[in-house]
């Protein structure tokens, strides 16, 4: 049976980590601010070039979404890496903590951190550049929800690679997502991509989300229910895949004794 005191303890362990670590605080507060400032100022410049109206805003919206994707997926694998780096996995997994409780704790802490990031980025975009994401309707909340689901899934896939290959594969925690960065159409339409890459992008829910974001902001075109269902279905599919790979890799790590010698 799931015990909430164990999930709470796991969350507390990571809250302490955030409080103690400058790196973790920078992840939540500093880097999103730098991104929004850099791209926000770029959009001011683009606006002055008298391009199609809305392009600048679409870029700013895309930066906010991408910041979320990057941070959320990274937090999942960092929750494991932090304990591996401090050789604490041994003690952690000798407690009654179950895998499902660890997953719920990881999701909860990731949700809390991402909410702080959302507040900071949306607040800055509104305060400095008069950009309110939700002026484009509550479909944006649906997009954010799916960004969470997909990014968690991607984080679980990344963390499963760490379980499998150890801390020598730790760079995947912050770099693997960059493999899909160019083909996700973050700043340009999928039609810009060569056909093979565009086909591949079509199975990524975030590619549909960025496409939808541009459609709403630049062309004032609302996504169809079908478009939204495709996004949700793909996100859930990746989430299931992520959880499957994560639990499988966890079992493999236990088989090999990785929690004892996490190298």
């Amino acid at each position, binding site marked *: 049976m799931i015990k909430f005191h164990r999930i709470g*303890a796991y969350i507390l362990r990571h809250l*302490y980590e955030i*409080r103690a670590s400058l790196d973790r605080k920078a992840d939540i507060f500093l880097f999103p601010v730098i991104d929004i400032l850099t791209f926000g100022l770029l959009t001011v410049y683009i606006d002055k070039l008298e391009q199609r109206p809305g392009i600048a805003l679409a870029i700013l919206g895309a930066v906010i979404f991408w910041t979320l994707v990057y941070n959320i997926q990274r937090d999942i694998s960092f929750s494991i890496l932090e304990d591996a780096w401090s050789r*604490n996995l*041994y*003690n952690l997994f*000798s407690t009654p903590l179950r895998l499902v409780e660890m997953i719920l704790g990881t999701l909860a802490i990731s949700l809390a951190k991402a909410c702080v990031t959302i507040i900071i980025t949306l607040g800055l975009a509104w305060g400095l550049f008069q950009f309110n994401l939700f002026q484009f309707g509550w479909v944006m909340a649906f997009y954010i929800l799916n960004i969470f689901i997909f990014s968690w899934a991607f984080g679980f896939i990344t963390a499963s690679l760490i379980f499998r290959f150890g801390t020598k594969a730790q760079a995947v925690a912050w770099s693997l997502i960059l493999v899909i960065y160019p083909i996700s159409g973050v700043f340009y339409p999928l039609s810009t991509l060569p056909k093979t890459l565009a086909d591949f992008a079509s199975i990524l829910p975030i590619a549909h989300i960025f496409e939808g974001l541009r459609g709403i902001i630049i062309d004032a075109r609302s996504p169809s229910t079908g478009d939204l269902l495709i996004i949700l279905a793909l996100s859930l599919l990746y989430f299931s895949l992520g959880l499957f790979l994560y639990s499988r890799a966890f079992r493999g790590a236990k088989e090999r004794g990785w929690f*004892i010698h996490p190298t």
Partner: protein
Amino acid sequence: MNIVEVKNLRKIYRPRKNPVEALRGVSFNIAKGEIFGILGVNGAGKSTTLNILMGLLTATSGEVRFFGQDFFSNESAFKSRMNIATAYADLAGNITVYQNLKVFALMYGVANYRKKIEAMLDYFGIEHLRNERFDGLSAGQKTRVNLCKSLLNDPEILLLDEPTASLDPSIAARVRETLLVLRRDKKTTILMTSHNMNEVEQMCDRVALLHQGRIYRTDTPKNLQSFLRVPSMEEVFIKLARGEFEE
């Protein structure tokens, strides 16, 4: 009554590629309130046995029963009644001693954890370290914090891997005294490994001699010495290390 029953435990690392057989059918029982030692050279399989019993490592085959029930089918339930202290693992380095202990106390659902943590810190003489970061501690201080962690939930079964490694003799003596009191007052069952033969002789009711993944003999320290016609456990260990038991 046997609290711990281990039957024909085997562990093969990398079964498909370069297999290494770490345990080759280890069996032993431990009675309630007994202090049971496992002796062996590095690589004999002591830590592997402890790690399987703590649910940190999957056994290739064999059976582990705690309190008469299968451990592998519901590890979490049994782990809440157990704990481990090892010289080979740390707590989270970035956070303080108190924060670490609080996280583990909550993990085990310890009621009135503040009082418990303070009593433990005080008992092991590390109250002054409560707000120090764990990674700033010396090896001996870390060992003491680990021991505090291992006693937070009043475990019925306590696994100890080199419990007094890196401790100065006076603290080590206090740790041994604590363990003996625990056994006397709470009937805690203790399974330990140690390279300190005086400690083994002083504390263990029975000792299993483990060599290359097999137990060669299990008996009281005194009986092992008379069986091998040696004057001390030190000599028993030397014979074991030289493989002079091998059939």
